[in-house]
């Protein structure tokens, strides 16, 4: 075979060379790219680990007249490489609805995640970001509130003198209450 002959004269050989070059290239770029991508996607494979029962307050600390109290939920939590035995993971409002019955409202606004504040003098919840307002029971009490749903409730159990709840965070900005996983 003539060494100087243009490989274009041999379409099959030329195709093989092109395919090989493509494969070698894809491999060289693909392996590091994929290794990065896999690690970058790591958060998707990590569950939030929320939803466990946590003791948050004593029953007597929740006023009997139905006024909400703000309570910080403290429990064990991992944040990447840090593990804490007891750190605040969220804040809820507890409200007594019957002598031994307590309702918990999540303090995170269902609109876009700001901290909803309870205003004693208005006897209502108010979000300082886009002015959503909620009644003491968490329902939207002003139709102009941009929040797509009432404040999120959490599952509560009164066990003797202690108030327990399953703490979760929820997706904001959508009408349905969907727990973040």
């Amino acid at each position: 075979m003539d060494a100087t002959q243009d490989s274009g004269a041999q379409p099959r050989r030329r195709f093989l060379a092109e395919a090989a070059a493509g494969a070698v290239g894809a491999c060289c770029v693909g392996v590091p790219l994929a290794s990065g991508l896999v690690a970058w996607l790591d958060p998707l494979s990590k569950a939030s680990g929320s939803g466990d029962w946590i003791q948050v307050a004593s029953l007597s600390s929740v006023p009997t007249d139905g006024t909400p109290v703000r309570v910080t939920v403290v429990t064990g939590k991992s944040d990447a490489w840090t593990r804490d035995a007891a750190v605040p993971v969220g804040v809820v409002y507890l409200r007594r609805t019957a002598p031994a019955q307590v309702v918990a409202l999540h303090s995170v606004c269902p609109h876009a995640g700001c901290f909803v504040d309870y205003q004693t003098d208005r006897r209502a919840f108010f979000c300082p970001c886009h002015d959503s307002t909620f009644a003491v029971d968490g329902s939207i009490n002003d139709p102009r509130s941009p929040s797509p749903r009432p404040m999120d409730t959490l599952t509560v159990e009164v066990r003797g003198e202690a108030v327990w709840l399953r703490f979760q965070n929820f997706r904001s900005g959508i009408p349905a209450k969907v727990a973040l996983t």
Partner: protein
Amino acid sequence: MKKLIDWIDQRTGMQGLLHEVLFERIPGGARWRYVWGSTLSFCFLVQILTGVVLWMAYSPSANSAWESVYYIQHEMTGGWFLRGLHHFVAQAMHVLLVLHLLQVIIDGAYKAPREVNYWFGVVLLMLTLGLGLTGYLLPWDQKGFGATKVATSLIGIVPLVGPSLQKLVVGGSDYGHHTLTRFFALHAGVLPGLMIAAIAAHVALFRKHGITAKQPYRKPEANFWPDQVLMDGVACLAVLASVVYLTVRHHGAELHAPADPTQPFNAARPEWYFLFLFEFLKLDFLTQWFGHQGELVGAIVIPGVVMGILAGMPFIGGWRLGHRFNLGFLGVVLVGAVLLTVKSLRSDAANPGFQAAVIQAQTDADRMVTLIQANGGIPRDGAVALLNQDPATVGPRLFAQHCASCHRYGGHDGLGVVSAEAPSAPDLRGFGSAVWLRGLLNPEQITNGFYYGGTKFRTGKMARYVQEKLPALKAKDPAAMASMIEAVVAEADLPANRAGLAARTPQIEAGRVHVSTTFGCTDCHAFRKADEDATAPTLTGWGSRAWMVRLISDPTHADFYGKRNDRMPSYLKDGRLSEREIGLIVDWIREDTAPGAWLKPVGVSK
């Protein structure tokens, strides 16, 4: 020298390149309206220079980010200036981008054959917005944290991919170390890298097509060098001067107290150049027209459509009246953005809750600095842990949360929020002081609401005693009255009252006798000895730390109100507050908040 230049030129073609850069033709001569692109490149250069040095001192993790920025701001030589430059140049870039965009659209420089170049410009706009957004979180202070939370939760509402995307951006289900590492990698690596590439393409294409000269030409065609270079230089200098002015005036960029997600933060706002978007989400029409989908429409669909139209302008501009449409559209968007920004600023200015939160944020930030300096540095647990031990910070928060539904503090709730409702229990500002006690014992003041609020004690025995008996006793022996007050106030042992105590001792001792004799306080109160028959709160240790902690822990104890307690909860007994928390409230009310009183600096031997 010439030989060296030649040597380099032969191997690099540098002179040709330089020539091409400087001798770019400008039909119609140099003009001020062409400076915007150069000022933006200049700003980007400043951001790289300042950013890289900030990087050398910045530590992205949830318990070191704020701490490292604190160190840059307050401890590093020239740190505040460096940070201030980075902060204000970022703001200047957003203004300049708008001016640049306006010039490009008005002059028609976006039309064929410069479409691709225009798109690189749009990409640069988005990259700059991205850098502003990611940078705002890095200090991990209250405002950056609060505002970025809103931004990332908006990602979550994107249909289908939203939740996964949010998790990838946040680096998990919740904010934490990986939120910062990811934001920082974007901010200092990915986005600037893309920006350099986009600027290179933008400038190369600009050179390829030449400048779109504004008609009519005012002057003969000229080179880029020297007139336009001079104008560009002057413009950059003007930008720099404004930025330096702002930096010096504000002593660098603001640094709020460190983020604490357990505290409500009623002043969470994005950086001002995102404020119009924030305010847009408040508009009523979103919920009225789109109901539950209002937020999706307001945060994703409409901004997406606007960006789409912006990107499509080169095509639209080709149609009949298209250029007019583009001009009009841009005008409407910009005027709308300005109006929304003004609306947002004005509604915040008229909102007392917001104003109180801003002042509170400033107080917390200043206090944080005081504490760190008193401690000689930040403990390993981080700055928030230090702040959470501080009575001056935590006391008023707890008061607002647990006490202010009945009590007041100087007329407000401890955090500066004034309630429209009348208080139903005493105002505790200055409790334990002579001023407070003199007011209580003043027949005109005792029932004015400051003292007994709306409790049943307002018309009780004590009020009657002050109104019916005390005036005569006081008139008879004013000196005895003064020493009685000194004696009771001495029980409180307020830090503010400790000076000159020795000189007052004789008076206090005389006063102690008057308490039980002249004034007959001990008919109802116990004072400095056990008293089985006492029916009113004990005056032994009245207003002292121990007395107050015990009272708040359980006002129904026989030493205090006993069975006659009017509504005040037993905070410790009911599990509402811990003893430590009660102590923090008490220390704050007693103004016993000097860091020296509770801080034990680590490793400092005195």
